[in-house]
Structure formats: C-alpha cells, structure tokens
C-alpha cells in the first residue's frame, strides 16, 4: 500500500463512522452544531495522531501481554492533555463538548488503530494513517452536523471564542421557514445518521451495479 492509498482509506474505504460504524457516541452527541463537530474532529484527530506516533515508537518496548492496558494509559494521558488545553484556551468549545472529551479515551477507533496499525507499522506510516482516519472522522461528523444544524435550527455555527462569533443565519428576516427542531434534539441525531447511512449505501450500490454492467459489456 503506498502512502496516498494509506491516507485515503481513512476517508473512503475504511471511514471510521460511515463504513466501520465505530465510536458513534460523540458522533451523535456533539453534532447539534457544526462548531461542536469541527471541534470534536480536531480533538479526536490530535489524540489519534499523538497516540499513533507514540505507540509506533514504543511498540518494541511493551511486552505483548500488557499492551492493551499500556495503550489505554497512553491514550488517557493524551486525552487529559487535550482536555486541559481546551479548557484553558477554548472554554466555549470545552463547555459544548462536555463529557465527550474525556470519553475519547474509550473511543474504539483510537484503541483500534493502536492495536491494528500503529503496533505493526513504522512512525511515518502510522502518522499518515492517523491523519487519514482523523480526516475521515472529521468529514463524517461535520457532514452530519451540517444537515442537523441547517435543517434543525436554520443556522451554521463555525466558531465561537470570546467575542468572536462566526455564525451564519440562513433564514432571511421575515421568512416563514419553520426549522425542524426535532433534528437538533436527541432523536434527530439517530434519524439523520440513519438517513445519511442509507443514502451512502444507495450510492455505493448504484456504483457497484454500474461497474458490474460495465464488466459484462466488456466481456
């Protein structure tokens, strides 16, 4: 596998959210605004990147029997660092993500990448793998949050820090558009993700059909 394929697999063929269906708790929990989703994506990617780098560096020092507990300690330490940095420098984001920041520790994707990839590959490949997986994860939750916030409250929140508040209100003044409030509430998370997965499956099936008919036409 070359480096480009290694990066792209995290976004398409092995997308952690849409294909592997792993680590869904924050996917559902923080996607009521685009801001929360992007912040979660960045926090997740930084923990995954650092844990992949550290684990691929120390993989030969850890005895095989206690590798999982060691990985968990490494990941928990990194999560605590990210949590403290975020609490100090991005308090608005910290409040919005709440409990889902410490819960990055038990996110199956991070432990899964440590076990399946970083413990078997060198630092450079593990870095690329982490960046690809992180990008795939961020794109997936941002997509979900985009639909939920746009249809559920008619706004798109990009960034909040102190006085800086980048938020687009997409309902023109005086327009009679009633947002679908249920989409930003708890049930909307499940329903939007279900519909998105269905649409992705449908696209995939159509593409396979096309490839098949092309193959039969060629033969």
């Amino acid at each position, binding site marked *: 596998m070359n480096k480009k394929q290694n990066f792209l697999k995290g976004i398409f063929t092995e997308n952690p959210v849409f294909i592997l269906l792993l680590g*869904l*708790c924050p996917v559902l929990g923080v996607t009521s605004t685009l801001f929360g989703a992007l912040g979660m994506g960045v926090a997740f990617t930084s923990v995954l990147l650092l844990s992949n780098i550290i684990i691929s560096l120390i993989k030969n020092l850890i005895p095989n029997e206690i590798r999982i507990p060691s990985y968990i300690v490494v990941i928990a330490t990194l999560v*605590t660092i990210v949590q403290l940095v975020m609490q100090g420098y991005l308090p608005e984001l910290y409040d919005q993500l709440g409990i889902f920041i*410490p819960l990055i520790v038990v996110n199956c994707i991070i432990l899964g990448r440590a076990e399946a990839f970083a413990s078997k590959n060198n630092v450079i490949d593990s870095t690329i793998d982490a960046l690809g997986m992180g990008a795939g994860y961020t794109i997936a939750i941002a997509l979900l949050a985009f639909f939920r916030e746009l249809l559920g409250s008619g706004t798109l929140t990009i960034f909040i820090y102190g006085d800086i508040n980048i938020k687009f209100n997409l309902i023109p003044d005086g327009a009679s558009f009633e947002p679908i409030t249920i989409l930003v509430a708890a049930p909307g*998370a499940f329903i939007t993700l279900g519909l998105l997965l*269905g649409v992705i499956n449908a696209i995939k099936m159509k593409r396979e059909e096309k490839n098949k008919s092309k193959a039969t036409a060629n033969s």
Partner: protein
Amino acid sequence: MSIANLIVLVIQGMLIQNVILTLFLGICPFMGVSKKSQSAIGMGLAVIFVMVLSSTITFAINDLILEPRELGYLQTIVFILVISGVVQFVEMFVKKTAPYIYKMLGIYLPLITTNCAILGLALIIVKPELEYGYAEMLAYTIGTALGFTLVIYIFSTIRERLENANVPKAFKGAPIALITAGIMSIIFIGFAGLV
C-alpha cells in the same frame, strides 16, 4: 434524603435521562449486541453488574483520595484504570464462583471496558454541581443501568422483527436500526415531564 427522593433519582436515571437515547452513551454495544434478544439481556445484566460496582469504587476514590488532594484532573486516567481492573476482576471472580453466570455473560464482560456508558456515568456522578452523596449516587447508577438494559432489550426485540420486514435494500441493517432508535428516542422524550 428520603426514600421518595431516591426513587425519583432511579426513575430519572432510567427513563428521563436515559443513558442511550438521551445522553448518547454506550451506542457501540447498543448497535453491536442487539441483533438477538438473548444476547441483549446478557449484555444488559453484565452492564448492571459492572456499572454499579465500578461507579461505587470510582465515586469513593474520587471522594476519599482525589478531591481532598485536589487531583481532580486525574479523574479520566484513574477511572479508566479502575474500570478495566474491575472488569478483569469481575470476570475472574464470576468464572471461579458462578460458572453458569460466566457462561451467560463471559463474552460480554471484556467488551464493557470500552463501553463509554460506564466511564461516562463515572464522570457524570462526580460532577461537583450535582452534589451527590453515596445514596443518591447509588440510586442514580442503578436507574441508569436498568435504563440501559431496558432500552437494549426493547431495541433487540424490535430488531428481530425488522429482520423480516420489507425494508428498502439500501436501508437494511444499520440505517433502519438507527432510524428505529430515533423513534424510540422520541418516545422517551415523552417521559421528560414525569418528575
């Protein structure tokens, strides 16, 4: 703290702030182990067992060791180590003393370490603004664990029927299961005014 207050906390944990449908914790086992009602019950019982035990221990550690020494920032690391230790211990203990229960729960116990409902609850109950004592903590934990089991069992029975339903091909499996969970979540919103 009266008995009535404790019952209210049990109901609150079980129905109003349901751990799966309202707080979005423990989605992985909710989606992964709910294809058969038998395995859903097994997972539910294992979660009740581990959740009550580990929450009590982490709460006590936080109360007796971390808080007096102002080490609150170590919560995540300490709690996850305690939980994996408890899971390992429960597995060995049950295997030795109750082989029958082990047969039923055995395969679900290792999965619980990465169940974010356990760590999530451990982190929620120590929040200073809740001011929970030991009794309230225990009541809320039992409610949450029962709520998890209730929802995963109901969901599994629905999924058993969905197997035979005429669902569009693209929506078979996970997509329709998620939409079903969404409808269940709408129903659980109805409990909001209960207390």
